[in-house]
Structures are given as C-alpha cells and as structure tokens.
C-alpha cells in the first residue's frame, strides 16, 4: 500500500521511458527527463535561482525550478549516475540515434561526446563483470557498446536484433554483474561480459527489464505481459489489458506501467496487484529518490503530460485504516464465491444425470446435448502450397459423431497477430470437422490451446472442449522434396560424440513428421521460401552436415541440437556462398554510405556558413533601408533554406540506409556465432569484431567459415 505525498505539474511533455533522477551536485536529487524537440529538462526545486545560463544549459523562463538542456537531436535514452572516479556528482548520459553525450550538469561541461553508429535505444550505467570502471552501456541496432568515463570503447558485442531494454544484474550469482538484454526478436539474452550465457525466448518485443533482487529480474513485453524470472526459470507472469512502457522494482516489488495511465504494483512472489493509481494521461516513467530531502525514499511517477506524483509506503497506523476490514470481507467473499461455483458445478452434474436417461425432448436442441462419449480428434500435418493457399501447417479438429463444431478458438503466443485465432464457419457450412491453417512466422515451439465449441446445428449452448497441442520448433519443414529444386549451396559441418539414434530422437521431437523416421539423413523443403534443408550424419565419425542456404536456420538447428544433446562447446565449419556474397556487397555499401555521409556533412556545414552571412547581409540591408537588396537576400536565403532541407532529406535517407546495412552486418556476426556453441561461439564474435575494426573483409569471411582467425 502506498500513499501519495506530493504532486507537481511541470508543464513539459515527457517522452515515455526517458526519465531519471540524478544528484548532479552530489547532494540534491533532480528529476531529469527528455522532452520534445530534442531537449532534456532538469527539475531542481532545491536551489532556486542560483544558476546561470551558459553553454548547453538554459534556465526556463517559465519556471525557475527547471533548466533545459539542448541536445538538438531527438533523445532516445537517458540515464544518470556515477561514471568517472573523483567526480562529486552524478553524470548525465543522453543517447540519441547517432551520438552519446556524457555531461556534467554541475560544472556545465561535456565529459565526452561520442558518435555511435548503431544508435542508442537503451542505456544502462554500472559495473559489468570484471571491467573495473563503471561503464555506460548502450544498446543499439543489434549491437551493445560500453564506454568508460573517458569515452573509451571498453566493451562491444552483438546481439540478435534491435535492443529495446537493458539491465545489469548478478544473474549467475558470482558477485559480478551480468548484462541482460531485451530485444525486438522477443529474446532476453544474458551476457557475462561479451560471452552469451543464456537466452530466454519470449513471445513479444521485450520493452523493459528491471533487477529485483539477487538473480531475480522482472520483464515486460509490448503486448502487456509482465513477469519475473529467477535466472532462466520463469517465476510468474500475468498479462494485462494495456501494453506496458516501463517497469521498476524496489525492495522486492515492482511497478509496471501501462501507458493507459495506471500504475500497478506487483509483489515479486505472486504477481498480485498491490497498488493501483490512475493518471489522466500515459505514465512516462518511474524513479525513486529522496526528493523531499527528508531521509525517506519516495517513488516518483511521471506522466507524459508532465504530471509528477510522489509516493511513500503507508506507515503502520495508516495501514490499519487503509486496509480496514476489507481483508476479512474479501476472504469471506472469496470463499463464498468458491462455494457458489461448486454448487453450480454440482447442479450441472445433477441436471446432467437427469438428462442422461435417453429420450430426447424438444428443449434439448437448444441446450446442445451431445453424446457423452464425444471426443475430439486433432491432427497436425504439413501442407504444401497450392494455388489458392500458401504453404501452411494444418490443424484438423473433428468430432466422431453427428455433432458439429460451431467455432474453434486457438490461443497461442507469438504465432498469430493477436494472441488468438478464431475459425467460425457460417451456419451453412457447419460440420463436424474444422481445418485451421497455421503459419508460424518463426521457428519456435508453441503450445496451441484449442477451445472447440461442440453442439448441435441449432444449439444456443455448446460444450467447450479444451485441448492443448504442441507445435514442434521446426514445424514449417516438409519431408516432400521436389527433385527439381536446386540443391542448397550453403552448409555447416560439425562433429558430435553421440549416437545417431539421439539425433533421430531430436529430429522426431523437433520436426513435424507424419510417421517417425529412423535415420538421421533427411531432406526437408522449407514451406516459407521453398528452399531445401539437408541433414546428414556420418555414423562412423559423428560428423553432421547441414545443407541449407539459410544461415539463420542453420544457426537455430545447431543451437537446438546442441541443447538437446547437452553439448557445451561446439566448433563448426561453415560456408554460405550466396549469403557471404550478399554480405560482401553490404560491406562495400557501408563504405559508400560512410563516404557519402561525410561529404554531405561537409556540404551542410558549408551551407550553414552561407546562411549566416546571408542573414547578416539581409539585416544590414534592412537597417540601411535598402529594401531592394534586402528582398533579394531574403529570397536567396529562402532558396538556400529549401536546398538545406532537401539535403537534409538526402542525408537522412542515407543515414537510414546505413543503419540498415550496419544492422545486417551485426546480424551476420551474430548468425556466424550461432553456428557454434559455447567458447568457439564467443571467439567467432570477438574475432569478427576485430576484423571489422581493422576493416579486413577477407579475414571476416575466413573467420565466419572456419570459426577462428588463425590458420
């Protein structure tokens, strides 16, 4: 239970998720948030009117408590904390799509300003692993980078997709922090420095992560799910109505913040809602700090409209009042509710027993009476593409008798647009069999929770059959092979010390096979792109070869097989000629975009100088009363301005293209890593990174193929 203790109106919009609190002078906590148009504001109610405007910082004319910091670029993330040694106050770190700024608010000076090509979507400040100095770690497009107080790049690695959330937490329990990364490919990855320790697959973009205590951390997804993991095991999760933007945790409890303007407070043990409060607009973020300087830590909640509320946990005597006797009332109510439910269920059975005597009256058609031995049959099968339908997995559900299936609801995470898929035939097409086409977009194992409404044709009440079927990980692969389709050129080869039977077991579990197979040598057709996938194993040496053109798929297969066989380290040789060819082109493109970028930057600087001159000339002309010249100058200025805007557009396009290329390069490194397991995997990633740093393209490909740089 919490009690609100103060509210403020700041009159500034606040960007969601970009709120922090920092003691910039070492004593007074200041609420700091990113606002629209590339500004950061600092709310400092403690030192009224003592500051002078200078450099980046300017006092807001409206409100003396607020200072504005001009970033001149859209801010994408923000944090504050201790970065360097021997600094009195906290350092403010502001990330944009291209740069990272470390700023000393107290001294009003930049500490460093670094260009980060991969952008900064998320930022976290703290100690990581064995690295001594605290790092500012930013997550961008597939890349993670850590900077120390001098702006030196101390840490770099790649991850699967665009990073959306970061948190530092002692995941392994060794007293050192690991980095947890939530990304757009629905995964939470744990990095022990640059080594990937574990991966947890979720079913939506991971929008927020927070450390709770020990090895426990909370996460939030874009679809409104919030939950807690203890290491790799999920503790609990619940899904809410509105999507979440930020979670925060404190002394074993966590906030989750749906943008609809509500705060919920979850206990970490059960996931119960402890406290709820409504804002009139979306919540931008939650921080904690001693904002009243009275020794108590408050929770401070901000809404996007600039409303700020502070909360304190209710004191003991308050608690008595707030909780009143509703606890016992609730208990009694809950028990009575359960009693009522049981009574109703009992009544159902009793009535059913009465009906069970054969002899059907008129009322039965409405009630949806079905034979008691009705059981649903379900079957999963792979269907190749036809003229009218794309290739899909077919789930067929049928009843054994004359009853019909009115509708089928399938609840499953991550494979449909929403969380459910419905098949509702029109009343003319009712039958005892329903076929549901399923096309999972990714290779993930999915539990299908099927609810089928079974009854008579004119029933208004139906029996609900609930069945759970599991869709294996690699279900979109068909054993039927078109002999004319070209053989894949890409391949991965690695050796395992296991019997072929174990591989066969893995195949049977992870692929959708009509009848089991008994040899590890199989060929599949991918239903997504029609490409072939060849798996073969030499039983003598244990060498497995995967033939496919899809490097991502190859990586998935290697990872899945390795975890099935519990292999810790696996080295592999790979060759994907087509893909490597594309990558080579991309790398040249990156160079081109870089040079274009530099050229454009120079041109723009040139133009801005022109504008400055022109403006001075025009104003001179105005003061001299030379209207003709003034007009001329302003017309020129107008043209120049237009040019500048056009140039900006070109630059922005160029930048976006560059970002896309860089993302695919990062992804390539990640995929190359995923072809190996354990140590070899990390070696590949580090070696690739070095190759890119040194601009050694040939070495890069060599590493990707062989797994090591040497030899």
């Amino acid at each position, binding site marked *: 239970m919490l009690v609100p203790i103060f509210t403020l109106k700041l009159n*500034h919009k606040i960007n969601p998720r970009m709120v922090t609190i920092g003691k910039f002078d070492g004593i007074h906590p200041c609420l700091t948030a990113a606002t*629209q*148009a590339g500004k950061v504001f600092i709310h400092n109610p403690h030192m009224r009117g003592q500051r002078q405007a200078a450099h980046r910082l300017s006092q*807001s*004319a*409206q409100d003396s408590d607020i200072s*504005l910091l001009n970033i001149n670029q859209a801010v994408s993330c923000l944090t504050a904390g201790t970065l360097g040694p021997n600094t009195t106050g906290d350092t403010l770190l502001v990330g944009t799509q291209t740069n990272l700024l470390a700023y000393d608010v107290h001294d009003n000076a930049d500490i460093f300003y670094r260009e980060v090509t991969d952008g900064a979507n998320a930022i976290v400040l703290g100690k990581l692993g064995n690295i001594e100095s605290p790092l500012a770690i930013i997550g961008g497009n597939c890349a993670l980078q850590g900077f120390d107080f001098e702006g030196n790049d101390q840490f770099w690695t790649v991850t699967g997709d665009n990073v959306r959330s970061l948190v530092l937490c002692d995941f392994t329990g060794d007293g050192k922090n690991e980095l947890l990364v939530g990304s757009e490919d629905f995964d939470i990855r744990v990095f022990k420095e640059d080594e990937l320790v574990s991966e947890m697959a979720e079913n939506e973009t991971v929008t927020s992560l927070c450390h709770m205590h020990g090895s426990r951390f909370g996460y939030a997804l874009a679809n409104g799910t919030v939950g807690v993991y203890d290491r790799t095991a999920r503790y609990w999760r619940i899904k*809410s*109505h509105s999507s979440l933007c930020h979670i925060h945790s404190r002394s074993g409890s966590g906030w989750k913040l749906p943008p*609809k303007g509500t705060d919920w407070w979850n206990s970490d043990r059960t996931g119960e809602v402890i406290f709820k409060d409504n804002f009139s607009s979306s919540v931008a973020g939650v921080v904690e700090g001693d904002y009243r300087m009275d020794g108590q830590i408050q929770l401070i909640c901000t809404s996007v409209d600039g409303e700020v509320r502070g909360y304190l946990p209710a004191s*003991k005597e308050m*608690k008595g*009042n707030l909780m*009143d*006797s509703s606890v*016992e*009332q609730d*208990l*009694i109510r809950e028990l*009575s*509710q*359960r*009693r*009522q*439910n*049981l*009574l*109703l*269920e*009992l009544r*159902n*059975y*009793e*009535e*059913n027993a009465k*009906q*069970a005597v*054969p002899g059907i009256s008129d009322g*039965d058609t409405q*009630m949806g009476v079905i*034979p*008691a*031995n009705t*059981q649903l049959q379900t079957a999963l099968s792979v269907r190749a593409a036809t003229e009218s339908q794309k290739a899909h997995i077919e789930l067929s559900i049928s009843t054994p008798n004359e009853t019909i299936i009115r*509708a089928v*609801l399938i*609840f499953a995470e991550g494979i*449909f647009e*929403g*969380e459910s898929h*419905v098949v*509702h*035939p029109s009343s003319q*097409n009712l039958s005892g069999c329903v076929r549901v086409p399923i096309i999972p977009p990714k290779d993930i194992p999915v539990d299908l929770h099927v*609810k089928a409404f079974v009854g008579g044709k004119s029933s*208004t*009440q*139906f*029996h*609900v059959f609930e069945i759970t079927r599991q869709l294996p990980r690699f279900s979109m692969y068909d054993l039927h092979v078109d002999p004319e389709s070209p053989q894949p050129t890409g391949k991965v080869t690695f050796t395992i010390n296991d019997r072929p039977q174990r591989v066969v077991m893995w195949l049977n579990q992870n692929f959708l096979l009509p009848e089991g197979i008994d040899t590890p040598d199989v060929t599949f057709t991918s239903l997504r792109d029609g490409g072939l996938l060849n798996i073969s194993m030499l039983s003598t040496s244990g060498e497995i070869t995967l033939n496919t053109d899809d490097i991502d798929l190859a990586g998935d297969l290697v990872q899945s097989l390795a975890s099935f066989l519990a292999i810790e380290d696996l080295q592999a040789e790979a060759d994907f000629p087509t893909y490597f060819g594309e990558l080579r082109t991309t790398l040249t493109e990156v160079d081109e975009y870089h040079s274009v970028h530099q050229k454009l930057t120079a041109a723009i600087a040139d133009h801005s100088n022109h504008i400055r001159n022109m403006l001075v000339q025009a104003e001179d002309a105005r003061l001299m009363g030379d209207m003709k010249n003034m007009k001329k100058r302003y017309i020129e200025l107008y043209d120049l301005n237009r040019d500048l805007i056009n140039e900006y557009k070109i630059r922005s396009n160029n930048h976006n293209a560059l970002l896309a290329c860089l993302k695919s390069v990062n992804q390539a490194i990640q995929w190359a890593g995923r072809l190996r397991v354990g140590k070899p995997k990390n070696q590949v990633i580090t070696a690739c990174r070095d190759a890119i740093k040194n601009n050694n393209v040939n070495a890069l490909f060599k590493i990707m193929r062989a797994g090591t740089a040497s030899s």
Partner: protein
Amino acid sequence: MEINLNRIDYLQVGVTSQKTMRLLPAVGRKATQKVAVADYDGVITCFGMKKGEAVPVFKTLPGQKIARLDLGGAIGTPQEKIFVCAGSEVKGFTKKGKQFLSFEANLTESINAMHVSGADLFVCASYIYNHYCDCKDQDYYLSGDKINDIVCLPAENLGRIVPVLACQDRVLRVLKGSELLYDIEVPGPPCVLELYNRDGGTNGEDILYGTIDGKLGLIRITDSSSSSKWEIGNEKKKGGVLCMDTFDIMGDGVKDILVGRDDGTVEVYGFDCSNEPTLRFEHVLSESITSIQGGCVGKESYDEVLTATYTGWVTGLTTEPQQAEAGPGEEVKMSRETQSKVASLRAELDQLQMKVLQGREKYQQTSQSSTAVSAVPMFSVNDKFTLCQDDASYSLALEVQTAIDNLLLQSDVPIDLLDVDKNSAVVSFSECDSEQPNGNFLLATYRCQANTTRLELKVRSIEGQYGTLQAYITPRLQPKTCQVRQYLIKPLSLHQRTHAIDQDRPMNTLSLVGQFSFAEIHSWVVFCLPEVPEKTPAGENITFYFQNTFLGTQLEATYCKGESHFKSDNISTISILKDVLSKEATKRKINLNISYDINDDSVGHTLKMIHPKLEYQLLLAKKVQLIDALKELQVHEGTADFLIPEYRNILDEAAYLLEEYKKQPAHLERLYGMITDLFIDKFKFKGQNVKTKVSLLLEILDNYDLDSLMNFFNEA
C-alpha cells in the same frame, strides 16, 4: 457534506432479477430489520442478522424463477406480507414463511412487474396490464410497447388508485380504470418506477423514474397533467438505473435518493437548500445492482443502504465505522465472529468439494457409455445491447453469475469494436477473410481476468449494413460450456424512437403499395428499425417517429394493411429503406409497388444540418494538430505573449480541446462516409451512378467549404 459508508457482504443467494429484495418493517422495539430476497431458483430467503451472522428466518422450496418481490398488507397495518410473482402465478407469504395466497393470473406470458396495495394487485406481463381486487379481475389494459415496471399512487390522497406504467417506448402511461388517462414522455426508456419517499411525497403524487440509459427524474402526477420536478442526466455514461429508493441515509433529516445501476454503481443523491439533487456518495460493486433499499440490518442504530446484486449477493453499505485492529506486524487481526464464519465456510467448502469430485467422476464415467448423453443446463446471462445517443454507438453489456473465462465476438457485418476503459480483458482480433464462404467481418476474443463477471463493449455500426453480431460466452465453470447470444444490427441502426418530429423540413417520401398484411409490413419495419415493439400494434394503422442519433435527421413511418409511407429529410435513409423493403418483399414473393417522391431541397437541408458538426470537427482537428507545435514554441521562448490571440487561445484551451477530440474518435470519417452516401443516394434516385466522382467529392471535403460542397452536389 461527506458520508462514508463501509461495505459488508451478508450472504449470497441465486441470481436475482430486478426489485426482488425488500426489508421487512421493524417489529416492536427491535431496531434491526429482516430481509426478504427472492431469486431465479424460485427460493425466497428471509434472514436477519445476529452478531454478524445471517440467521435465516425461513427459506421456501425451489420453484419457478421469481421476477418481482413486493410487500403488502391491509392498509393501515405494517406492510409485512411478502408477495412474489413467478411465471403467471402470484404467491403470498407471511413474515414467518407461511404461504397464504397462491393466485394464478391465467396470463399466457409470465408476469414481469407487480405492485401490491392492500387488497389490490396489479400485474404486468410484457404488453398486458391487469388489476385484481381480492383476486377478482377489475381492469385490463393493452400497452403499445413493453411494460417494464408499474407503480401506483396511493389511494389515500386521491381517492382512487392511479397506476403508472413504465413503457419501453419512452413514455410513462397513467391509467384510470382500463383507460389511458394520459402519457408522459421521459428522456429514455424507463425501466424502474418508485414512489417518492415510498408514499408519493406530501400529496402522494410524486414518482421517481430511472431509465435504461442511466437517467433519473422526479415527476408529479396529478389528475389531468404531469410536471417534471427535476431530472439528472447521465454525462458520465454510467450504467442504466435498475432500482431506486428514498431514505435518509445522510442523517440530516432530508430524504435522500438511493440509486442502483446495472454497471454496479450505487449512488446517494442528497438535496441542497435549493432542493436540487446532488451526488453525495458513490460506490462501485462489480456487478449489476438489482435491488436497493435503505434501512437498518446489520447493527442497531446504524442505518445502511442494502443492495442485492445480479449474482445474488446481499450487500450492505453501512454507516457503522469499521474498526480494524492493526495487530502486531503486518497482519490485521480477524474478529472472532469472522474467524468462526471463515471456519464454517471452509468446512462447507470441503464437503462440497468431495461431492463435486464424486459428480465429476460420475460424469467422466458416462463418457464411456455409448448411449448416455451429456447435457449441461443453461446458465443465465444478463445482457443488454443499447444505442448510446451521445456518440451514436452501441454498447453491449454481458453479465454471468460466475466468472467469465472468455468471450468470442463474431459479426457478419462490418462493425468497429471500440476500446472501453473499464474493461480489463485482453482483446485479440483474429484475421477474417470476409470473401470466404464463412463471411465473417469481425472475429475477436476477450480473455478475461479472474473474477470478471461483467463485461462491457462498444460497437459502432454503419447504417445500411445489417446483419447479426454474435457473442459466445464461456464462463469458468466445469463442465465447460458456452452460450451464444445474437444481436441484430438493423439497417437503420442509428435511429431512435421519438414522439414528435419537425414537420417543416423538406421531406422525401417513399410509398409502398401491395398485397401485404398489417402484420407483414410491421414485421418489416421491426426488421429495419430499432425500438419498435415486436407485437403488431392494435388498430388499423400506426405512425412511428424516429430520429437519427448521429445526424439529427428524422423519419416518419406510417403504415397500414396494403399501404405504407416513409418520410425522411435524409435521402440516404429513404434509399436504405427502399433497398431493404424491396428485398424483404421479394423474399416473401409479394409484389410491391414502390414509388418515391424526392425533394431536391432535402439534400441541401441535410448538408446544412451536417455543416456545423463538420465545421466544428474540422476546426477541432486543426487546432489539436497545432497544440504540440505551439507548446514547443512556448517552451522555447518562455512565453506565449508573442503569438497571435488565436494561437494563444488554443494554448489556453489545449486540455479541453484534447478531451473533446478524444471523446469522438473517427467522428470526421463517419461524417465523410455519410456525406458520400448522401451523394451516391441522391443520384441513385435519378438513375445515375456517380461512384466515379466520389474521389472528387473527397477532395472537396478535404478543403471543406459549405458552398463549394453544395455546388458540387447540385452540379454533378
């Protein structure tokens, strides 16, 4: 004046219908009152509270579903006899639970409203009103639309009993004998009537009414006329009023109005010095409040508001302060009474659990047998599908006696599902290909959070597109079943009944002549328009008036056997009617002679009606667009003084503008759609297809100006 009421749950009975709980008058010096409540299972439970526990006085055997419960007794004596109506039967019980009356009213339909006064009994069954005195038939009246409730002004002051019927067609009908004295229009379909101050006020002439769309008011009814004393609107879009009572809960000597609504809101209205009702207290229970009454039940000398909810909870909101002993540590100590209560409940639960397990096993066994059938009794669903006047959308409320697990919505017409803030269920839209033979336009699932017994949704329809919306409700109850409910989206779905229209508007007329009966044409009208009684009206011919809730255009429908006329100032309305009626007639192979008289002025008139709405919306959209930019400027410059007044004004009103803008999403698109329909329909009647010109029209709308739009309509 503040009042603090604390909630106490007394007990739970079966599902209850409206007005089925009453407090018996206090006996002798004992101050606490007994409660009588009747439920769907036909059981009347009468209980009193002793030391915090509900002690039953009596409980009757199950029977037919009880629709109403009333108290009566000889005039001048305490009103402590309990009367209930179940099916077409009225039963009377003494306060001890002895049945003394069983009266079969011999009606074909079951009774849904009842009033008892002395030896007089008044019952209503959908359209029929009957008055019995000493169980002998007295008066009879057939109403034009469904009767929702009845109340009678007491005989003491007027010399005779005056029954007042609340009818679905937005009127209160005042009767005299078997004749209609006069009728009173109220702002919405009334669904509950109550005597003010329980006796009709000082002159016994005042009655309170509550409507389905959440409005309430006080009306004074005299011999020849009526006057409205006050009216409370429903700006906050709360639920419909289901029950009311007058009771001085504030303890200030002035009687307050207690109101229970179908969204679970309990309200107390007090009166200030100017005798205007003001809201004093509000509490939200999670389910429909079916009955409400003020009195004293739990503890002597503490008044309370007693409510009964749809799922059968009898709950009190008491003035008794709740003292909680905050024990050592975190836990709050439970009182001994509650502890014993909890213990007995737990014991009962264990027993039930055993029984249920046995039942489950038996049920499982039957699935082995090839002859047995599985039939689960229907669970009751309380549903309401109503048109909201303010934003011209439908609201669908569903309530089940146990928690809802999930809800599937399916529609074969294009409709929009709107987000409702109150709703905590997780919505998921499934893709549906409308061209396929399945013809689904909307498939959505709602997965409910635990303990949701009530769901509210909002649906926006398009006039001219008609079909059915189906809701499949699955409660969390084993064996799992689901029930389907169907809701018709009528062709003229946005129309609403009114009682008078403006005759001066330029009207278009559609006339149908053919070999159809009165019943047939009536059924077609029912098919096309909402709020028309299903029963064919008495008499030779009938006229209904309607208003379009979105545009404010009107429709007059007059028809009799073999002939019908529809008049509307909106050409689109006429066009829709023409299409639907001719289709219906063809279906039944009836030859129709359709003629229409199109008034060209009507199009201009409708456009002028739309104009202020459209202009306002366009301006609003424009202003809202500017807000962010202006705010940015203000922040940058530190002041807004340099802006022109117009912009400064926008900044000042920013909050209000945003709120207005949020209120009616897609309003502009809907207006555009209607103008486009108007355009197409106008030329359709002239036999021209102008669909190719629609893009031109949209261009004009983008740079809207009334004159150019009018010109376009005239020239094209």
